[in-house]
Structure formats: structure tokens, C-alpha cells
């Protein structure tokens, strides 16, 4: 924590690192924390000590975030680390994710809540398969902003052509994923070039340093531009002498603005009623907006419980038939015919995997695009694909592209509770090539 923190600093940016193993994500995070004076003396001392024990002359800044014993022994990141820092301009929650393909699920975890992804590439290797995979995951999760950090520029003599070629290839690929604006920054995480301080070695680069960009990229959405969605988490009924008749619906606004007097539809029942009052954590108010946690009182005495959705504005039609793009996260393959649990907002229902419509194959060389592979027998761990589900009870889903919170769900193994799959209602990519090449077992399969 820096001494310059203004206690009123308000805006918060959640961002995640991404990119292939050893491309320098954790080193970059360490550099960012170190150069923004967010590393305290005892933390730095611990890192220096640990580095010396490992025979390294300079402190290995990756040890600031690689906190597990196994990570420190192997010199790789296994699971997401969350770090917190602030500059006078903004507060940051940063998820440092693993690059190793085996831990892609942990990268998915870190990226799911991010508003910005920093995709790292080793300047010597350029865009590799895992770079494409992580960029695809970030696009699939609809992380709004993507930065390409071309790292280890110190190992390529800080040469502009190396940077320019990688930036051009990545930007074209990102565009094919539907990611429109990508900022490319040439950096050296190890030496600190263009991370917090501008580089003395790359006069040819006129853009912002990484931190400058993180501090100024616009964040947050405008709740007034979205329809209100309020998943009911819990019914509050004190039944005390003081509050004999109080009945409030507790939840967190997933999107939009709710005002006292607003008409709302209760889903999936479709009944309509009006907001009678809003209690904002003990204080009465007449307006609430996402992502506030509040308690809503309604004018009518309806049968509403956990799992119902209060919606204002255009409401989704409840359905038992769901088409979704999914990211499969478990070693157990997901197959047609599987019976699973589906967790959507505050509702968990039984569901049947009716069909694996296709698997999405990532391009393996520059210029290629995403491709549908139909006839997939199942989705393996780390596969992205499209599925058709049938649920036991109707769900009020938005498409994920319209609403990250009410358009997302998990598939869970009913036997042992394992999280199997992350689901996003609707089509994820507009640009998937529909040549419908049959799905042969892939050598480049994601294992």
C-alpha cells in the first residue's frame, strides 16, 4: 500500500493476466506491485530471502504472487492469486492466472470477473497456441478490454519490428474473436520497461505504459442503460413484535436500476407486481442500482422465494430449452445424455445434456479462424463448445452477451458436487466458421 492512497479513491478495476506458461505474467505482476510502491518492506525482504535460497542474485518478483509451496518449488503458477493495490487514481484487484494448459480452469476462474485482461507474449516466441486459447477464453467470457503485452523485449534488443509483427498477428486474431480494441505495449517485466515507468530503450513506442493504461481505461457499465434484474436470494421475515408483517426479498441487483413504484415481473411465474419499498441494508431508500445488495418489498403478497427473478423492462421468456456456449472445466468429459445440476443465479435445477452441437477448434496458425467441429462425442477438459440442454424447471435466462450475470450458469455433478462446466447462454462468437468439418480426435486436443 502506498502512502499516497487517497482514502476517497473510488473507481475499482478488476483485471487478470493471461498467456502461455513462462511468458512472464507473475514477474509482470511483481513488477507492477513493486514499481507502484505496493510491496511492503517485510514482503520484499521475504522475497529477497527466498530468492537467495534458490540461488538467484536478484529478487524473483514472481515469488510475490506464487505463494504455494508447489508453485515456488516448480517456478510456475498453479492457481490464481488475487492481489490488491492502489494508485492515487484507482484501486485494483488483480488476478494472476496460470499459463500452464493443465490449469486453464484456474485461468477461467480469474478471468470471469475481470474487466480487463493483460495477455502476455514472449517476444522471442510470438503468439503460441496457449496465447490463442487464453485470448479465446477472454473473448468467450466477454472481458471488455484486452491489452497485449509483448514481454521480454530485453531479449530481442528492444527491436520494433519484432513487436510490430506480434502486435499485428494478435490484433487480427483478436478481431476474429470479436474483440475490437486491443492495446499493444512492448515491455520487459524483468527490467521494468513500460510497466510503470516509460522505457529508455524503446523511443519508437509512443503509447502509454501499462499502468497508465490501467489507470485510465473506462470501467463499469451504466446501470440506467440496462433492464433491471434482481435474483431473489433469501426471504427476510423477522416475525418479531417490532416487525410482525415485514416481508422483504433480499438480493443483489445483477443489472439495471430499481425504483419504488416500478412495475416488476416475477419470473418464472410471470406474475406482475410493484416495488413498494427498498431497504438498502437497514436504511430505507427509493432507488437502487447494480451491483447494490438490497431488500425489496412488493405491493402484492405473492409466492416468491429463493431462485425467483424480479425483472423490469423487457423480461426474458422462461424456458426449459437452453442453447449455450460452454467451457468445460473437468477431466470427466461432458457427453450427450449426462444428467447434471444447473446453477443459474440463485436457482439450481436438474438438467439433461441433450446434445453436444459442436466443439470449437482454435486456429493453429496465423490467418486461420475458429472452426466448428460437429459430431463431437463429448467435450474434454478445456474444450469450448456449444450444447443444448433441457432443464426440469423453466429458467429466466438472458443471453450472456446481454448480461454477464443472468446469462451465465454452472453445470455441477450431482453425485459429488464437482463444478464441471461454465455456461454462457447464446452464441459466443459470431465469427465461428460453419464449415462443419467433422470432429476427428485432435492431436492438439486440450489436455
Amino acid at each position: 500500500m502506498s502512502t499516497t492512497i487517497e482514502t476517497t479513491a473510488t473507481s475499482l478495476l478488476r483485471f487478470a493476466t493471461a498467456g502461455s506458461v513462462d511468458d512472464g505474467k507473475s514477474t509482470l505482476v511483481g513488477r507492477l506491485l513493486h514499481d507502484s510502491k505496493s510491496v511492503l518492506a517485510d514482503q520484499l525482504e521475504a522475497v529477497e530471502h527466498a530468492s537467495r535460497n534458490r540461488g538467484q542474485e536478484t529478487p524473483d518478483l514472481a515469488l510475490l504472487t506464487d505463494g504455494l509451496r508447489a508453485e515456488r518449488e516448480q517456478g510456475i503458477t498453479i492457481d490464481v492469486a488475487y492481489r490488491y493495490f492502489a494508485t492515487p487514481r484507482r484501486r485494483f484487484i488483480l488476478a494472476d492466472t496460470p499459463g500452464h494448459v493443465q490449469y486453464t480452469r484456474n485461468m477461467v476462474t480469474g478471468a470471469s470477473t475481470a474487466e480487463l485482461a493483460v495477455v502476455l507474449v514472449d517476444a522471442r516466441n510470438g503468439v503460441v497456441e496457449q496465447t490463442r486459447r487464453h485470448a479465446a477464453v477472454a473473448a468467450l467470457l466477454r472481458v471488455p478490454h484486452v491489452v497485449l503485452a509483448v514481454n521480454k523485449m530485453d531479449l530481442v534488443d528492444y527491436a520494433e519490428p519484432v513487436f510490430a509483427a506480434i502486435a499485428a498477428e494478435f490484433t487480427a486474431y483478436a478481431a476474429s474473436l470479436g474483440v475490437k480494441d486491443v492495446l499493444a505495449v512492448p515491455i520487459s517485466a524483468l527490467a521494468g520497461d513500460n510497466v510503470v515507468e516509460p522505457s529508455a530503450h524503446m523511443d519508437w513506442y509512443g503509447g502509454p505504459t501499462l499502468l497508465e493504461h490501467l489507470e485510465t481505461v473506462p470501467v463499469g457499465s451504466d446501470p440506467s442503460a440496462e433492464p433491471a434484474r434482481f435474483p431473489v436470494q433469501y426471504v427476510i421475515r423477522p416475525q418479531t413484535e417490532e416487525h410482525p408483517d415485514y416481508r422483504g426479498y433480499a438480493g443483489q441487483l445483477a443489472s439495471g436500476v430499481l425504483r419504488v413504484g416500478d412495475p416488476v415481473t416475477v419470473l418464472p411465474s410471470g406474475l406482475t407486481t410493484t416495488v413498494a419499498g427498498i431497504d438498502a441494508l437497514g436504511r430505507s431508500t427509493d432507488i437502487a442500482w447494480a451491483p447494490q445488495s438490497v431488500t425489496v418489498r412488493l405491493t402484492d403478497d405473492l409466492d416468491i422465494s429463493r431462485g425467483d427473478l424480479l425483472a423490469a423492462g423487457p423480461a426474458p421468456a422462461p424456458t426449459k430449452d437452453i442453447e449455450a456456449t460452454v467451457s468445460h472445466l473437468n477431466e470427466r468429459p461432458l457427453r450427450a445424455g449426462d444428467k447434471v445440476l444447473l446453477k443459474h443465479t440463485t436457482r439450481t435445477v436438474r438438467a439433461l445434456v441433450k446434445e453436444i452441437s459442436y466443439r470449437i477448434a482454435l486456429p493453429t496458425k496465423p490467418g486461420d479462424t475458429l472452426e466448428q467441429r460437429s459430431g463431437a462425442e463429448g467435450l474434454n477438459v478445456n474444450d469450448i463448445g456449444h450444447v443444448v440442454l433441457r432443464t426440469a424447471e423453466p429458467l429466466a435466462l438472458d443471453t450472456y452477451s446481454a448480461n454477464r450475470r443472468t446469462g451465465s450458469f454452472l453445470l455441477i455433478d450431482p453425485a459429488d458436487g464437482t463444478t464441471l462446466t461454465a455456461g454462457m447462454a447464446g452464441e459466443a462468437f459470431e465469427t465461428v466458421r460453419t464449415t462443419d468439418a467433422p470432429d476427428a480426435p485432435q492431436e492438439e486436443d486440450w489436455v
Partner: protein
Amino acid sequence: MTTATDSPVRTDDPGQNSGGPFALSHLDALEAESVHIFREVAGEFERPVILFSGGKDSIVMLHLALKAFAPAPVPFSLLHVDTGHNFPEVIAYRDRVAAEHNLRLHVAHVQDFIDDGRLRERPDGTRNPLQTVPLLDAIESNRFDAVFGGGRRDEEKARAKERVFSLRDEFGAWDPRRQRPELWSLYNGRHAVGEHVRVFPLSNWTELDVWQYIEREGIELPEIYYAHERDVFARSGMWLTAGEWGGPKDNEPVERRLIRYRTVGDMSCTGAVDSDATTIQAVIAEIAASRLTERGATRADDKLSEAAMEDRKREGYF
């Protein structure tokens, strides 16, 4: 509140003005996230319990729980593992608060386990690592299925890796290599009989956030968090309270100093810091300027080894 609908910014919080009419201050955003977590647990678990030590993080947790269910009472009980070396001011605070909110308080005593031989006193006298066995015993015998802890990811590098919903097996153990993916704000709390889930509603809070929130909400804390004079002695580079728990030794001179506690735990391993901060504003200024982390400044137990926290967590520690 009488705010006009076209200007929803709350005037009581100047921090909100910089990001458009529907911006939330960072404290409001953290509060909303924590309240959501409490309500998810209330909606999905049978027997949740809040680990309540009387330390600032557990006090903030309870405050958030009270707000989450108002005007109804908190639907959880409280659990404290008493090492027998706790600060009397903190125990008094704990009992007062539990009574004030009419909450059931379970206390597991480390001393009972030492007395009947299930635990043995350590040569260094610290009882901090001894808390795990009574904790797991209390969870098992009360069949608690969700256990709220006040751990924050900014505290320590192993904590920085933990999920908000953290599954523990039937031995209470944490396996950092087998954590469930945790996406968006969809928390998967499913567990088998005998397993339980540790829940960390303050995961994304920093020490400074906690103090700023305590100030904003006017939350009362045990007095030892503010500067006061106390008989202390130096050990392992920190000031420990002289007391019956086993300190000081003969070669450790006791002196009276102006100190405060930055964290509150077992007296044998929780150090005080030199401080003249008698008000919450002074404490916040002191923390913002500190060059040491909270654990680095005050916890002897974490200096044992590089992976001390991970090892304790694997065994079922908080």
C-alpha cells in the same frame, strides 16, 4: 431518504462523485459483494456458523451479517476457539456483542484439549497452531456445514490463493491443488456429508478497507486496537504483553510503552506496535503510511517458515 430520482448519488458519501451518477464507492462495492455471500450461504446451507474471535475482521463480518438480514436477526450462531491466552478485553467484548445481538456463542477451549491429553502444550508456549483440533472438533460435533472466516486475501500469499467458497474434506483439510473453479459470483457450496465449506466474505478487502469501513460505519472495537500504555517485553522483534501465559522469561525485561494492537490473536504470538493512534482517523493514517504488512508487524507464527500459513491451512486452520 428523499433523494430525487434523477440524482441518485448518496450525499452522505463524498467518495461516490467521481464515476457518474450510478457509481459505487469501493467500500459500497465491497459491502455489496460480502452481503451477497452471506445471503447465498443462508439460502443454501443448513447449519452455518461465524468464526467470531472479537478481532476486527470478525467484527466487520458480524456487522455485515447484521446488515444483510435486517430487520430480521442473523440466522447463524457464533463460534470462538479460545486459546486460553486471549486478551481479557477481547473476551469481554465478544461476550457483550453476542449478548447484545442475542446470538448463540459456541466456545471451544484449547485448555480442555490440553487437560484431557488430546493436545500437548508446545515448548515455545504458543497456542496458535493448537487451535485447529478444537476448531475441527467443534465443526464436527455441531455438524456445521458452512463456516465463515474473516480471512482476507491481502493478508498472506497462501490466503491469496483461496476461493471464497473453500471446500474442506472430512478431515477438515484444504487441498490447494484441487480447488473448484469459481466463476462470476456463482458459488458452488455442494458438499458430501462430513465435509464442510469455509466461506470468506472479506476475501477482497484489504486491511485499509476494513479500517475505513469501521470508521464509516462507526463500529466499536475492543480498546486494545487503540494506543494505550501497557507492560510489554521484546521477543522475536515484537512487543508481547507480559502475562500468565508464559512470558516474559528471566532475561526479558518488562517495560511500559505506548502501543496498540494491529491484529488480535493469541497473546503468546501476537505483537503490539508502538503507536500513539488513539482515534480511528489516526489508526487509518498510521496504516496508510506503514511499510510493514499487518502479519509481518505482528505475527510471530508466520515467521516460522516460508509456507507456514499454507501448511496450517492444509490441516484445517482458519
